[in-house]
């Protein structure tokens, strides 16, 4: 009996000397996916599917080779409920589970990055474009593949100011709306004559008639709305129902299926709505993205918007968010391969040194100066017609981009 006890003591001491345990010991590498399953299910599903699709592809190809060993990539889902506090809890759980990285929509990153950074674990944001979330110097473990608010705001200024419009800058009072408004203020600060008014809208309000009437009276000839999808739908409803055919431009949330679902009875109100987003195709054409979309739909089915075109065809949402999560997972695997070990410090350093070909054919990667994988130049503008959208023709980048099919 004494021998057994002594053996256990020795083994325990050895294990203590080896440091934190990792799920890698059983041939698995865990990637945590911390998303708002119960707060924003569309976003959560897309991100989860993007990581899972990348993992399935890699695992079915024999797994990932790190150093001399082969591992399976295992996504582990956490629900942050859009709560920073829950995101902190989830981050701790993920680190305890030995996760090599955390893929997130961005919820709570202001609080979670330090916890993850103590263990040199990278965090990959694939939705929130908020300024300050990513800072290669202050937050060396935070990376992002998603269009930045900064990039979108400045691209809008570049796009709209030459048109000579008097723009009403509207935002809702959600955190998302306020962050966007701050970026728009900066982007338009050198051209104040282009701005007809700035207005905060109550998020979640369904009737914005008074606010839109006021905007019309100021002489605005265009509205730029940075808000949640429900606010965008309410703005369009208020403007169109009084016969105001003002052009409406929006943040990426304008492409959210919710906007079209809300206005399904008035498809003409959606016509002309222009939103900004990250380009879905590279110079090589639509091939790579369509291949990705096909894999995605085979695995998880098409993301139906819930509306139809005038020809009666159901409209499908291209898996943009899934693409970013998919790409981040591939960059992470490239970093693991380059590091040649699961040593978190080495993996984190390698994140700055690798690129992979993204799902849309573009190169994806980070570097020491920039942890944003979608550069500002990649922000394009698309306009709705008949419940589907196409890149605009009056912007140099957008005019070069092909249309992604959105009906079966």
């Amino acid at each position, binding site marked *: 009996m*004494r*021998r057994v006890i*002594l*053996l256990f*003591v*020795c083994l325990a*001491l*050895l294990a*203590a*000397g080896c440091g934190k345990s990792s799920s890698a010991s059983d041939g698995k590498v865990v990637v945590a996916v911390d998303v708002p399953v119960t707060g924003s299910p569309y976003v959560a599903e897309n991100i989860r599917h993007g990581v899972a699709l990348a993992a399935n592809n890699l695992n079915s190809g024999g797994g990932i080779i790190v150093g001399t060993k082969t591992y399976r990539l295992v996504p582990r889902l956490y629900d942050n409920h859009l709560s920073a506090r829950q995101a902190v809890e989830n981050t701790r759980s993920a680190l305890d589970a030995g996760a090599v990285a955390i893929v997130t929509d961005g919820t709570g990153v202001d609080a979670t990055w330090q916890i993850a950074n103590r263990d040199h674990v990278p965090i990959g944001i694939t939705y929130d474009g908020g300024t300050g979330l990513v800072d290669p110097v202050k937050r060396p473990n935070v990376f992002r593949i998603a269009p930045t608010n900064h990039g979108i705001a400045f691209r809008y200024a570049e796009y709209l100011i030459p048109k000579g419009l008097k723009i009403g800058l509207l935002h809702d009072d959600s955190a998302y709306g306020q962050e966007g408004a701050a970026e728009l203020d900066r982007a338009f600060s050198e051209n104040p004559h282009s701005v007809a008014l700035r207005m905060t809208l109550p998020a979640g309000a369904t009737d914005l008639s008074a606010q839109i009437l006021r905007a019309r009276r100021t002489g605005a000839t265009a509205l730029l709305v940075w808000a949640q999808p429900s606010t965008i739908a309410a703005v369009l409803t208020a403007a169109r129902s009084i016969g105001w055919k003002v052009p409406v431009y929006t943040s990426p949330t304008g492409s959210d299926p919710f906007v079209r679902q809300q206005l399904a009875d008035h498809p003409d109100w959606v016509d002309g709505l222009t939103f900004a987003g990250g380009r879905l195709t*590279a*110079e090589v054409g639509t091939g790579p993205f369509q291949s990705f979309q096909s894999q995605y739909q085979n695995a998880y089915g098409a993301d139906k918007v819930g509306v139809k075109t005038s020809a009666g065809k159901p409209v499908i949402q291209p898996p943009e968010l899934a693409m970013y999560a998919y790409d981040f997972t591939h960059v992470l695997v490239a970093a693991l391969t380059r590091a040649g070990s699961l040593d978190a410090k080495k993996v984190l350093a390698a994140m*700055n*040194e690798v*690129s992979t070909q993204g799902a849309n054919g573009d*190169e994806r*990667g980070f*570097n*020491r*100066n*920039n942890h944003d994988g979608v*550069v*500002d*130049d*990649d922000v394009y503008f698309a306009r709705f017609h008949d419940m589907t959208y196409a890149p605009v023709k009056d912007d*140099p*980048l957008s005019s*070069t981009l092909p249309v992604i099919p959105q009906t079966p």
Partner: protein
Amino acid sequence: MRALAAATLCALVVAASAAAEQTQQVVLPGPVPYPTDSPPLVGQGTLANAYMAPGLHIASAQLVRVGVDASGRPARVSVRQRLVVRGKGDYQVAVSGPVASVRPAPGTESEPGFRTDQVLWAGFSPGRKILAADVGLRLEPAAHYLPLRLRLRPEGDGVSLTVANATVAPVLSYEGVVRAAEMARLLDATRRSSLAGQRVKAAFATFYGPVRNPTRPVRIEAPLLVEGTLQLPGGQPVRFSRILGDGQPLTFTVHASGSGKPVVHLTARPAPVIDLLRPPGAPTWSQAVRRRHLGPAALLSRLLGARQRLVRADQYQSYLADPDSDGRSRAVYEYRTVATAAPRSVPAPAGGGSGSHALLIALVALGSVAVVGGGLVVWAHS
């Protein structure tokens, strides 16, 4: 007599045929390859995948800033590189080198990326786009490829500055039988592109009979226009402007009187070949060979030397590479005396840093092994 004439004619025809059989077109130097691998500077590691949309062109202008110490030795080297992208489309390019730091430079319309030994640029050009970066370089590998060597030393009642062209390199040359008229035509074409500031264009020369390489390699240099001042505190600046190379001396020395710390500020630019391509006594080489006898061998030697110097000068227009290998590249090298700190020994890592972690891990590991070993001994004897 007729028979003799006929025999002579036959002999000439045979000789001409034999010569014609031995005629060969020899590629003249330029625009590439360069005589040495660097410049442009090359870093360690593999460059990121490059992509430029068809029809896109990138021109590079760079200011190479060299800080020199009190003896004239380089103490720091950095480059402000400004790339002008023309055309519409995507680009993803990398500039290699012994890169220590990268920051956006004034006027840039995009942020430069930084990986080990490379500057990254990626984005979309709507028609024209400026990409500018301040690139700090590791001193030793960067200084090795600078075009000038400076030496500052006290002398007499003041200080002397010696400036030497450091671009001299051995190159392969040719010898053989050529025609003066063709050499003159090629010299004129080379001169025109040199005076226009263009890259030397690809060309061939016809050799009659065997082509030989001289046993001793020819040494050529990039001609450099060097302009600047040397000044001592309170004294008048001593100004200078020289061409180093192109038939002129490869070094010069200037002297400033006075005392105190000397201040040097000079610029060097790769210069065209002018003197070596100046035709003797005529506006063009073609006219010169018609007016008087100029030996074809001497003309060939001059042509090769001039073209090799132009190639070398073109090489120094790209201290950092232009990501577009067909792009126009221009470089100015600016040398300036800077205050340098005395070399210090590298301090030990502060307490609590990675060093102490390493020590802690080692102690834990040793302790674990000792305990396990002891445990096994006790177990074995229990």
